[in-house]
């Protein structure tokens, strides 16, 4: 995920209750200066209040911290940078609670509560015994209901990077002509701001009359992985040529970048899927709708240099099968308990919450002796908070991650897809399956 490219304001202070008004006013005023509306700025203020209260009372009271407010063009980001010690690590789990007065369990959870006021919350390890808590609140954009007519032909096909006005037309075409297009396209102003922020990069296909016949957005999911949204094709007559031209243009842009792979979580038309490698499916749930399985596709951008991956023996068979199917050269190493002393403290999971998708992604940050309990607690509380899609990502390049596999399996998680080179080596995305699912 990219860091915001716009202006960043920084406040350094100690985490003490008396500085709470300073922290919340700083966040709210920064958000307003960056263009957030009244309601959104107040929501962000509420989230900052919850987090500041939580950390100053429960996890690093009196410690020096930094709060950074950054202008992400379509959102304001507030980042808390905090010192951590092994003693307070468990307190950074999003599901951690602290006890004071007589409030109920959920109300005591500062981080979880904060996540409800913002669009995105993430906990990240920064190394050097520091943690970041990152909140994002997006601007409110007007929904556009305008219909744009689809071009009559796709002769003289070319690809180009659109200016803001063409990008808005592309968004309206995508929203109007493709029922599967994400809601995002109903807010063309947001798409323009996302492109301006560097969050995504648009490419459009135009015909000889410079009318838009298709387009694709791509962005960096991580430093090494580029994620596609689309392509969206508006003229069926030359669907294949349009799709291929857009994918080729996209590959042309990223082929000599840091990216190692191109990823699509949103599926691809059959005529393009042949150029990609099918990774498998994840199932997406949304309230009141039937679950939707979505195929994921991958395209490696370089030669596979091969690598070592670490797993628990219970998952070795799955990996052998997947690597065989994908023709990836991997040395599969199995972690074994040899009776050595282990860290029996509290484990820490990073959580990334996307409210609009009812989705939580968990990643291990610190090992511990409480995997089963910690996983169970995350599932219970995230699920209870309406997050229907819970994923857990393990990096097969980090040996201790493999120690989580039995606990994940016991906690209802199943391996869904392998993302080649998405981390230190490959990442496996586990999906939580409720035992009551049919």
């Amino acid at each position: 995920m990219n860091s915001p490219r716009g202006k960043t304001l920084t406040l350094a202070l100690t985490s003490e209750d008396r500085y709470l008004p300073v922290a919340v006013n700083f966040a709210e005023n920064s958000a307003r200066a960056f263009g957030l509306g009244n309601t959104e700025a107040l929501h962000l203020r509420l989230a900052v209040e919850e987090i500041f209260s939580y950390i100053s009372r429960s996890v690093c009271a009196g410690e020096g911290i930094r709060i950074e407010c950054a202008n992400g063009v379509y959102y304001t980001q507030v980042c808390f940078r905090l010192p951590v010690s092994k003693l307070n690590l468990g307190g950074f789990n999003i599901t951690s609670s602290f006890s004071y007065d007589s409030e109920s369990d959920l109300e005591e959870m500062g981080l979880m509560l904060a996540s409800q006021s913002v669009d995105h919350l993430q906990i990240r390890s920064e190394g050097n015994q520091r943690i970041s808590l990152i909140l994002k609140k997006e601007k409110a954009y007007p929904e556009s209901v305008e219909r744009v007519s689809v071009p009559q032909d796709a002769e003289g096909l070319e690809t180009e990077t659109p200016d803001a006005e063409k990008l808005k037309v592309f968004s309206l075409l995508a929203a109007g002509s493709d029922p599967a297009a994400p809601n995002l396209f109903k807010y063309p102003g947001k798409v323009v701001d996302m492109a301006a922020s560097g969050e995504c990069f648009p490419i459009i296909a135009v015909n000889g009359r410079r009318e838009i016949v298709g387009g694709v957005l791509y962005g960096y999911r991580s430093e090494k992985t580029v994620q596609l949204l689309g392509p969206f094709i508006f003229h069926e007559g030359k669907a294949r040529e349009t799709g291929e031209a857009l994918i080729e243009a996209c590959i042309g842009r990223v082929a000599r970048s840091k990216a190692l792979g191109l990823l699509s979580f949103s599926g691809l038309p059959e005529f393009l899927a042949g150029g990609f490698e099918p990774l498998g499916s994840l199932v997406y749930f949304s309230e009141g709708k039937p679950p939707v399985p979505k195929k994921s596709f991958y395209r490696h951008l370089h030669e596979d240099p091969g690598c070592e991956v670490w797993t628990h023996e219970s998952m070795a068979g799955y990996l052998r099968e997947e690597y065989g199917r994908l023709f990836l050269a991997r040395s599969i190493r199995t972690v074994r308990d040899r009776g050595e002393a282990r860290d029996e403290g509290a484990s820490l999971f990073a959580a990334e919450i996307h409210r609009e998708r009812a989705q939580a992604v968990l990643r291990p940050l610190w090992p511990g002796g409480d995997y089963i309990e910690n996983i169970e607690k995350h599932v219970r509380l995230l699920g209870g908070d309406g997050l229907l899609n819970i994923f857990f990502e393990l990096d097969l390049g980090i040996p201790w991650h493999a120690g989580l596999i039995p606990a994940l399996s016991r906690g209802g998680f199943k391996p869904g897809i392998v993302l080649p080179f998405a981390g230190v080596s490959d990442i496996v995305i586990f999906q939580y399956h409720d035992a009551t699912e049919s």
Partner: protein
Amino acid sequence: MTRPNLDILVPAYVREFEPYIPSKPDPELKNLYGCPRLFRLNNNENPLGPPPAAQEVIRRFPPLQGAVYPSGDSYYLRREIAARHGIDPEQILVGNGANEVITFVIKAFCEPGNNIITADKTFAVYEWVATFSGIEARVIPLKNYEFDDRKMLEAMDANTKIAFICNPNNPTGTYWSRERLINFLDGAGSDRIVVVDEAYFEFVEKEDFPDGISMIGDHPNLVVFRTFSKMYGLAALRIGYLVGDQGVVDMIRRTCVVYSVNSIAQEAALAALAHGAEHIMETRRLVRESRAFLCEALAKMRLPVIANEGNYLIVKLPGSDTLAYRKLMREGVMIRPMTGFRYPNHIRVTLAGMEAMESFVGALKKILN
């Protein structure tokens, strides 16, 4: 002591650059992919190796000479090259492979704010060196698989310092004629350097293919690269050179690291030049035969081919080239996927001996079926 703050220490254009990951050594690859034998068809190496005279130099190199520094400026080799082209040895700089001389040239003429012009689908190192040196690389799309001279000239501005032309182009094998090159040199003018990379010069038999070195006298803005890695089979020793106008080369010399070319490489290259005529003929024959064989086999498989000059050709596949790379590796054949050259779904294959070509065709049939 805490770790250095790399975010502050390292320029953004270096931090953002992705280091090239070379392929692992053959024994590691064989082990990873489970193939007992590996045909290397990915680097356009000469399967005949170096000319016999150069092989003899390598065999007889005195071990004690390993303790002695090489000639710092490849003294004898420059004299030999100069004599063969009728130029002054001071017009020549020898480097640790042509990649090093690319770096010399960019360092000599460019500073942040400047730009270089090259093509989108060509040898990547011009673009890489510019990018990690903080120089903008303007990549102009090929037109009909050729460098687009008109668009390249249009893309030039007051900050353009160098244009890089790969002639013949790697990977498409197309080339500019002498006349086309002269027009471009005139168009670029005296405020810019035009580099013509002739890494595959010795493979081209077409009559209208220009010898860049012979044009330097009339076009002092021209710098020509040659290498011993391809036709002369000395890739392992890393040796290449540039030739230019004496005043231009005198400036480039200021950015050049002396002693970067080892003694065995200098002596082997000298022998290769002096006694390489038969080797060139033999290699050309092998390349012609392999090209004809592959073109016919690939036509029968209904796979589009881009086959022009050089000891390589490109095949368009019905699916992902990087996946094909992995599948072919399992069959013991190593090719170059072309996504990195901005040719997705294409692979480049070195034209090598018949055994390798037959193995490649057999493996390709197997993976496509």
